[in-house]
């Protein structure tokens, strides 16, 4: 080997090593965040927020006009009845937009340190906008102008040890939320004071929102457990061992909690007792929450397949395999189901809920690809 070859080889090695993880260190990214007001689908993905006509998939508007690489959006936008859209970004900022045209109503406002990412959607409770942040705080802001109302934990105390990645749930005067620190918290809606936290470490990080069912809060953990907590005091009512990481929230219907795990198992568990009703193994990991609509259950599996089942009979109604992974919960709007893909094209696909016929697709910048390849 000639000595002169050493330098190019070393530089080549450096290039390969640097290329292994993009920026050379860990990168922050997520999958598309979806929401809708019935007429428009709102999607936060990468450097923009898109408003797409739910009937035909046409782009209505996008925000911002000039996307920036240091400001990315992945949290599901929150839309109000009076036509305002609230979107958090990965630099710990929140902005209020007009749902009709994307004009800025206020913001963006920086909530905390810019390394605190907003992963989960915000929740509206009266005049408050509750924003979960990756910096370990839950921010309550006035929806009219974004001014601070309270922060949990309070500004003068340390934040939670880990991020809050999911939208909080509001029940009357109480707010419930989960954290990656293995816990579930309840805080007072008016003041932001802590009411309780679970009576023990729940044994695993909790990535998605808790689900309120009567007097119980259900939360799935990375520690393989679906845990039911008493909503008044945070005491454990029952625990169900799924056998693998549970990423998404359960979907509850007729006293049954349906959820998937990263081993690809779909579980049905009795909400009252925590006992298993049935389980089924799908062909792929499931990190999303199932969506229930009438007698149908929509399950987006990581491999890119959308499964549609009849709940009462567990019968397959139809499936569709898409290009890319599925990490975003499906969105059902009347007779249309919309799925967002990760790393595939088209980015959004809409199907008839009855038979899976493709209705429209959307990809920023356009694409000739169809959702159904066959």
């Amino acid at each position, binding site marked *: 080997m000639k000595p002169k070859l050493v330098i190019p080889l*070393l530089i080549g090695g450096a290039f*390969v090593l640097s290329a292994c993880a993009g920026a050379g260190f860990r990168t922050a990214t997520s999958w598309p965040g979806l929401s809708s007001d019935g007429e428009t689908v709102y999607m936060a993905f990468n450097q923009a927020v898109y408003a797409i006509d739910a009937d035909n998939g046409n782009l209505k508007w996008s925000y911002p006009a000039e996307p920036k690489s240091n400001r990315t959006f992945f949290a599901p936008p929150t839309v109000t009845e009076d036509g305002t859209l609230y979107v958090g970004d990965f630099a710990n900022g929140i902005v209020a937009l007009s749902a009709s045209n994307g004009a800025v109503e206020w913001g963006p406002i920086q909530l905390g340190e810019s390394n605190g990412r907003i992963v989960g959607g915000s929740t509206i409770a009266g005049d408050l906008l509750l924003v979960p942040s990756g910096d370990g705080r839950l921010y309550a802001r006035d929806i009219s102008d974004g001014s601070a109302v309270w922060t949990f934990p309070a500004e003068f105390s340390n934040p939670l040890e880990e991020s809050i990645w999911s939208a909080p749930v509001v029940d009357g005067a109480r707010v419930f939320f989960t954290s990656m620190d293995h816990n579930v918290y309840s805080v007072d809606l008016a003041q932001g004071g802590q009411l309780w936290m679970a009576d023990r470490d729940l044994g695993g990080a909790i990535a998605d929102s808790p689900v309120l069912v009567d007097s119980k809060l259900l939360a799935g953990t990375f520690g393989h457990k679906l845990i039911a907590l008493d909503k008044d005091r945070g005491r454990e009512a029952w625990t169900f061992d799924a056998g693998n990481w549970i990423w998404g929230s359960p979907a509850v219907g007729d006293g049954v909690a349906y959820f998937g795990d990263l081993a690809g198992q779909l579980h049905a568990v009795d909400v009252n007792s925590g006992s298993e009703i049935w389980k089924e193994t799908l062909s792929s990991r499931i990190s999303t929450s199932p969506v229930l609509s009438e007698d149908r259950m929509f399950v987006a599996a990581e491999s890119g397949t959308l499964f549609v089942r009849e709940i009462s009979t567990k019968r397959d109604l139809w499936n569709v395999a898409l290009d890319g992974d599925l990490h975003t919960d499906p969105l059902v709007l009347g007779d249309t189901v919309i799925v967002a893909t990760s790393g595939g094209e088209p980015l959004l696909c809409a199907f008839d809920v009855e038979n899976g016929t493709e209705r429209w697709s959307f990809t920023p910048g356009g694409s000739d690809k169809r959702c159904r390849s066959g």
Partner: protein
Amino acid sequence: MNIWDTFILNPMINALLYIYNFLGPTLGLAGAFGLAIIVFTILIRLITLPLTYKQQQSTQKMQELQQDKEYIKIQEKHKGNRQKLQEEQMKLYKKKGINPFAGCVPTVIQLPIIFGLYGAVIRALADSPSPLLEFSKHIYSSVSSTIIPLDSQFLWMDLGLPERFPIPGLEGLPLVGDGLPILAIIVIITSYLQTKLTTPPQPGSQGGGMTQMMGVYMPLLLGWFAYTLAAGLALYFVVSNVLAISQAVIMKRYRSAPEAAGKKKKAKEQPKESSVLGILSNVQASLTKLLAAPSESTAQGSNSNESSKDQSEPSTKKKADAKGS
């Protein structure tokens, strides 16, 4: 899963997780992921010890060879004919059972480890949904998922980000505005020392040119990695380099001890087991020597004052010969 993931990346990720689980959640130590990287590095050095031992033996043989009469004769005889000199040198290496490229072996061994560890650290410290979900694919079912997410803090560092030591007053300055890259500087220094101690000198040969270039560019390259990539990788470089330097110094001490014993009766009384102080003094002596005369030190013993004095004579003579010619 591909071959790389199955045989390199996943074992590394899970080894780190096992160690992390033991040090952090079980023993309750702070900065467990940084400690896990240190323990992991020590284990890697132990596993590769037979290889590095042979390589360092070869290095020492090369150093001794340079004082060999036959070697010096070849150098003088073929001074004007580089190609012939190389041929004769290679013949001599073969005759003496020396591999002149052995110095590259540790570097070559390190490459998959560096790549694997880099991938493992980046993945293990995922702090947003997509990377964490991807990371979950690499974790063995026997690893407790209760340790997720991992604590990425170690001393002043976030191990998933490039290391900078914050110093008030530096804000706004180019390169150091975010703080001083202490680990990157330590990586450059220790890589240089390690290369000098473990790479055989091969004056006049093609391999020698390459070795010299490696001695300069490798520390700079590793320093650049440490400056731009995750601090966890820089921590690996530092620990690995320090262990390699210690190993080289200890080996030199043990190897030169019998020689010194043959020359000096006093050396017979020297204890076989080296004390910690003895090792430290050897490290100090080696480093002082390297810093004082980097180009010379690799050709000389660095064990004790006496042995280095003994070995410095031929080198001085060689220099004088070179001047004379």
